[in-house]
């Protein structure tokens, strides 16, 4: 379905967002066309090692700019030394990410202790919320049933009183 474009699309919406956050200096562009049977290729342009580094980025030495497109978009940053392409069609977004990390030799960003705390507390909140919503759903439904019975009874009384 969708001729294998679901993986690339999910990659763009989910993984590329995270990549861009951790590597803001790396230019990332996406080109889309309406033709389904077109290819879906990601081209990663590497510049020479002397190019200005982005501090705090997760990519290692080669300063990469990646463009996910059906046709290659030239980058207007430092001149490209070499280009690697990844074919994304019919692959899930996780597979695409794995291949990408292999090609660029990217280092995954570990969550810091504070971020782990935040994630854990959010997860607990979510579990608590699910439990609470189940309970309150029961209460609400019970109330609704009682009101329905009452309305019915009132309706019957009104009919009988006539």
């Amino acid at each position, binding site marked *: 379905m969708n001729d294998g474009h679901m993986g690339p699309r999910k990659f*763009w919406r989910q993984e*590329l*967002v*995270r*990549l*861009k*956050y951790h590597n*803001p*200096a*790396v*230019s*990332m*562009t*996406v080109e889309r066309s309406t033709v389904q049977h077109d290819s879906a290729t990601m081209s990663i342009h590497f510049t020479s090692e002397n190019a200005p580094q*982005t*501090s*705090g980025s997760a990519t290692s030495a080669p300063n990469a700019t990646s463009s*996910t497109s059906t046709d290659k978009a030239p980058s207007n*940053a430092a001149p490209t030394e070499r280009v690697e392409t990844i074919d994304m069609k019919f692959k899930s977004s996780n597979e695409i990410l794995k291949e990408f990390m292999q090609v660029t030799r990217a280092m995954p960003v570990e969550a810091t202790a504070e971020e782990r705390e935040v994630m854990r507390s959010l997860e607990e909140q979510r579990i608590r919320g699910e439990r609470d919503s189940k309970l309150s759903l029961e209460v609400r439904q019970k109330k609704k049933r009682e009101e329905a019975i009452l309305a019915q009874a009132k309706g019957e009384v009104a009919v009988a009183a006539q």
Partner: protein
Amino acid sequence: MAAPRYCPSCLSLASQTTTTLFRASTPRISPFTPPPQSLLQQPNQLRAASQNALKYRRKDVPASQKRKKARSTFLVPDLRNAIQFSLVEAMRYLRASEVGRPPTSSKYELHLRLRTPKNGAVVRNRLRLPHPVKTDLRICVIAPSDSPQGLAAKAAGAVIVGEEEIFLAIKEGRVEFDRCLCHTDSLALLQKANLGRILGPKGLMPSVKTNTVVKDVGASVREMAGASEYRERFGVVRMAIGQLGFSAEEMQRNIRAFVESVKRDMQGISDQTAKDLHEVVLSSTNGPGLSLNGSFSSGEDGGVGARDVSTL
């Protein structure tokens, strides 16, 4: 003692003594005789029977008086619980959420939350940003096309100039402009043409209040082409403040200009209504809203500087 009797219709305890309140025709009840059946068949008389029941009867307020007190100011969130960001941090998040989109389609927008009473005057003005967001604005001018004003308007860059042709086009539904100006002499014709129903909801109807009825059309067209308009709706002033490609310094200048302009407007109307700036939120077309804490960049960004945030 007789067994306690309940009024069958209101289920209140009908006490023995108060039956003496009724007319003499009803037989007096002594504690030792069971009540006659006839009494039980008169529920309406027994309704207001018990003194006790009267004392604790729920007072039914008539529906017209039953009303919750409405708030007079808009609610503002408590900023002590808010997570706030520096400008560079916020831009980093917003750029990430807009990754891959065409660079001219996504814009940054700023929302200023004001602490203001609900029924007061609203802030409304036009501003020229240091780095304009939208540079291609189609302006329509209502003036006779051969008059000097009409020609000046055309020279200044108005897209459509004229009178009757414009009215006809609008009536047909072809509204091909983003702003509309009117010369003072053509105002009467405009009112007669009854275009308020079409242009009014769009905010395009020229009026004296919005400074869109002018004498010097050429200068107004030039001024309008670079200016963005803002307006307070429900206690919030929102305006587009940058394109995605803007750098952090450009954004800072735009934000400063905008906030200062709004503050000046608020001071101008402060004698009638008390207005106060409460919160500044930066957002983008496809991104979340992030509350700004006023600083340009924080030190703990992993070294991501303002320059890094500028690449698309």
